[in-house]
């Protein structure tokens, strides 16, 4: 069996299959498994800490004998058909030997270049050019930024900036501080000359669990990308996260001050003419969760959620929504019209139509969170292409028959689960993962 994507859905499939007794390849194209969930703070509808409940499953993946975990690995090509797919996997170099790295971080300590973390950049996340994706990463192995090789980061002060030799030709680097620091530790794990590795496997069935992306709104509307204190829900999630770049101190990006008024605008990206044509269903609960946590950090925070239809569809969701109300979170049926910034205080004013009252109102806040939805991952499109899987009109993997044969793609022996098939929450991802495991072992329909 091959499972593509190591988010909560893919991890669950791999564990189900392995416990059942089937050998599994679990492939993720990033340096660690975990997916979106590893980046979240707490999770609705119970506010369990995300990494607390996910990390044990990640370690379990690592421990299971019949799971072969391949991170930093892409699916290049698939040939054949069920029940005998020939798959070519390509493991991209991480420039650190997984079997030798002790996760000690001496390389990162030595590295002179600090850059903005792509994922947490706007809220202050930083990392070295050699870094670990997050503290609980599995595998617990550092990874060197591809951009650092061949002197490409010279302008930023990278230590190998002046070397004239091609890294792939050299085995005995004396210049790269990470290589030297690691060697000094006796581990010899940093290998700037590591090459990509081609792995050919044969599998009975394939499960696509490549997940979702958080929608990134265009710059301009609602002041996103223009006003510093306008964030997406994903950025706010990272801001709140005790394990994130701000160690859980909710602070205004403009001045690092503690915010007293926070508002959420729901359904961003679904306005007339905007690209998202469906309800992502989790964003209402994400805002609810974030508002509760903000209130728990500081009960005096004024938290307002401007929404149209509140989706509290899942088990325990409505109770969760009521819990937010009990915390004093204000839910206002409102249609936002515009957002202004006070250039001095950097506070934001939202102009909106209050549907219950039937009039236009204004609201001043310190942080504005845009509740953006879940969209198909760009890498999902890539894998769909490699596997010749049709996509639905929104760009998610298309199911053959969503009622009678859920989770089956157009190709026999290839299945989909989790966010790759459409917006979804964690609980549903895990249920789907169990169901899809049954499909994968039965191999048919």
């Amino acid at each position, binding site marked *: 069996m091959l499972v593509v994507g190591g988010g909560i859905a893919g991890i*669950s499939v791999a564990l*189900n299959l392995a416990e*059942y*007794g089937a050998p599994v390849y679990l492939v993720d194209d990033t340096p660690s498994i975990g997916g979106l969930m590893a980046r979240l*703070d707490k*999770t609705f*509808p*119970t*506010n*369990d800490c995300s*990494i*607390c*409940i*996910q*990390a044990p499953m990640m370690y379990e993946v690592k*421990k299971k004998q019949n799971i072969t975990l391949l991170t930093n690995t892409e699916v290049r090509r698939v040939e054949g058909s069920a029940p005998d797919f020939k798959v070519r996997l390509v493991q991209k170099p991480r420039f650190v030997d997984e079997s030798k790295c*002790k*996760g000690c*971080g*001496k390389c990162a300590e030595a590295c002179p270049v600090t850059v903005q973390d792509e994922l947490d950049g706007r809220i202050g996340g930083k990392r070295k050019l050699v870094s670990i994706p997050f503290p*609980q990463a599995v595998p*617990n192995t550092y990874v060197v930024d591809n951009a650092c090789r061949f002197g490409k980061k010279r302008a930023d002060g990278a230590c190998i900036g002046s070397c004239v030799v091609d890294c792939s030709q050299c085995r005995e680097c004396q210049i790269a501080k990470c290589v030297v620091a690691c060697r000094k*530790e006796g581990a010899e794990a940093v290998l700037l000359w590591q090459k990509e590795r081609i792995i050919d496997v044969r599998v009975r069935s394939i499960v696509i669990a490549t997940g979702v992306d958080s929608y990134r709104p265009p710059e301009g509307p609602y002041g996103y990308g223009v006003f510093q204190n306008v964030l997406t829900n994903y950025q706010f999630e990272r801001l709140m*996260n*005790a*394990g994130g770049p701000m160690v*859980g101190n909710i602070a205004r990006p403009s001045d690092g001050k503690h915010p007293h008024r926070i508002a959420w605008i729901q359904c961003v990206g679904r306005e007339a003419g905007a690209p998202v*044509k*469906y*309800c*992502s269903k989790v964003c209402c609960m994400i805002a609810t969760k974030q508002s509760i946590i903000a209130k728990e950090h500081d009960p005096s925070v004024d938290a307002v959620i401007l929404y149209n*239809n*509140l*989706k509290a*569809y*899942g*088990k*325990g969701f*409505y109770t969760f929504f009521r819990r937010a109300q009990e915390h004093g979170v204000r839910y206002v049926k409102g249609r936002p019209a515009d957002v202004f910034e006070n250039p001095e205080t950097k506070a934001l004013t939202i102009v909106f139509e209050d549907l219950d009252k*039937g009039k236009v109102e204004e609201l001043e806040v310190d942080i504005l969170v845009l509740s953006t939805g879940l969209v198909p991952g760009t890498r999902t499109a890539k894998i769909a292409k490699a596997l010749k899987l049709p996509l639905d009109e929104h760009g*998610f993997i298309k199911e053959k028959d*969503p*009622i*009678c044969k*859920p989770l089956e793609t157009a190709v026999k022996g290839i299945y989909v689960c989790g966010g790759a098939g459409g*917006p*979804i*929450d*964690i609980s*549903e991802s*895990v*249920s789907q*993962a*169990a*169901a899809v*495991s*049954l*499909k994968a*072992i*039965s191999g048919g329909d």
Partner: protein
Amino acid sequence: MAGQKAQGAGRKAQGKEQGAGREARGNEEGTRVKGRGDAGPSQSPAPCASSLAPSPLAPCTLRPAPCRIGVFVCDCGSNIAATVDVPAVVEDARKQAGVVHAEEGKWICSVDFLSRIQNAVKEQKLDRVVVACCTPRTHEPTFKATVKEAGLNPFLLEFVSIREQSSWVHKFDRPEATRVAKDLVKMGIAKARLLEPAECVRIPVGKEALVIGGGVSGMSAAVGLAEQGIKVVLVEKTDRLGGLLNGLDMLAPHTHSAEKLVSDLEQKVKGNPQIRLFLSTQVEDIKGYVGNYKVRISGQAEPFTISTIIAATGMEELRPSGFNYGAVPTVMTLLEFERKLKTGWNPGDVAFIGCVESRNEKRGCCNVGCMAGLQAASAVRTGFPQNKVGYFYPEISLEGTGVAAFEDAVRRHGLKLFRFADDAYPTVEKGAAGLIVTARDILSGPEVRFPANTVVLITGYKGTEEAPKLKGLLKVSSDNDGFFQEAHIKLRPLDFAAEGVYLCGCARSPKDVRTSIEEGMGAAMRALIPMNKGHVESEGIVSVIDLGNCSKCGLCAKVCPYNAIELVDKAPDVIQAICKGCGTCAAECPKDCIQIIHFTDEQIGAQVEEALKEDPGQKIVAFCCHWCALGAVDMAGVNRSEYPPNVRIIRVMCSGRVDAAWVRRALELKAAAVLIMGCEFPTCHYIDGNYKAEKRVERMIKSLGKKGLPADRIRTVWLSAADGPKFVATMKALAEELEL
């Protein structure tokens, strides 16, 4: 009764196999079937073996027969060695009673050093191994596998964390860091002396499943299992398969015929010889546990032997109150309406009212009402284009990509949509010609009066009528509305806490057909895992009860979150294969009859004594759960966050294991404070051990206070695995408060 006892004995005789934890899997030649009384390992001479009988928390003394302990202390390159004086730690360890070998290693997890450890075990005949290095959360499996390969039972390994708990967090204080490391290692040695080999306990699981409920979820589960060669008993209380779908016509959002869906599945059920279908039948009695249930159903004299059970009992409509429901026959619920509509009846003009009996203080969104209601409303417009349809709602919940096309279709049907405020439901009155529905429309503003011949109440749902009875039989829990409660709403949605019982479909919570089918298959997969493996097993850390002192109070059985303790004539009996080793039973037992292997009172006691041997007044003894709390401690390490060097951490699997006697002993020994560290609420890796711990600590504070001990020095802290900073802050605050 007699039959039951005999069966219990049979399980004991065959149910225990000796192996060695999880690693044994896949290499089963080494496992042996053993009787219960017979505890020694085959490989190790076990000179230190003691009975598992509970012993009072006596000061740690060396066992009568000498141990041969090997201690391996890691430099982790310079990660440990740069801060901790490793040679001094090694020297100190060497002096401890029972230690015959102590050694420093640059990277003790490296392949060459691991074989060095194995050689030392063999050559020096070590019978206990202590490794002092990073964190058990990542490295314990490696070392366990290593000692096992060298012929030692893996439970004779003790893991000491001196990187995360010392060198990384006391970087600027070499003497103190070294002192902490020495203490931790000595505590590990003290425990190691008392370690016992543990066995992996198994019970066999056959290939027979019971599915209760013949709706789409139950049918999908039954078919899924049967196709994998499982014998299925499918019990349906009514005289036909299909459940709710029997009352429906076209299903939203894909306009699929409900009848076709049911008949397709029905064919698969009836065509599969592995499935025995019992219609018009109820489950009368369930006894036993995973792999060995005896299930009696109505109409059958002989009970079935069943290995796993899936509850797929679906849901029922609530009975609405108000709206003239019950008084006027043309006011009906959605399901009543659907059933009538299916017969070709013309309802006239129809008003739908959404969210009846839902979205209030009692229960949430019914999850299917909007879709089902809009589907029915559209069906009226399609079948009777001249009829007017008014649709009153406070909120419309249609989500996901599947509904986009459906929403467009609904729009085209020309329904009149009115949105009322959450607290202002429409009223339904009898008018001259029929009914009048009145409400304020918040979208347009004014009050709307809509005349209708039929009023449809989109009503919320509750679990099956038999939920209370089934709940008792299955020993599971449910919410106020009779929906069954899963083990963990996110990560174990289709499992009950107890092994061997699963749930799916609307028996969990209201949902659409697609998800019900998915969950049916998912539950089948979950049930298939133990049935395909042929057994369930626990990892050796399990509960052992000595009935000698037992007063048969039954508290242990009551607190066990996994139903792993059976009461046979009121006497508790642990089904070790399904025990998860949380230890909450042991902490609860008022008579101290229960021990947890690898975390016995004696072993923990030895750690407490050792920790407080010198300068107790400077030391905080912390009982820390293996999961989130230790995660936070580790994270503080990874972040290299400094905190005062006063804490000595003793690992337990769950904060629910922490026994009042340990706390008392630590206070008697004059510890500066005792800290109980568990997972942050609501998370607990053993369902609710932390909640139990919290209550127990409250009781401890009272009772120990009365005994004149400084109970104000008992503290708790609940941490998430990302709470490194909070742990650090707690340590700093405590040290400051206690003036350490």
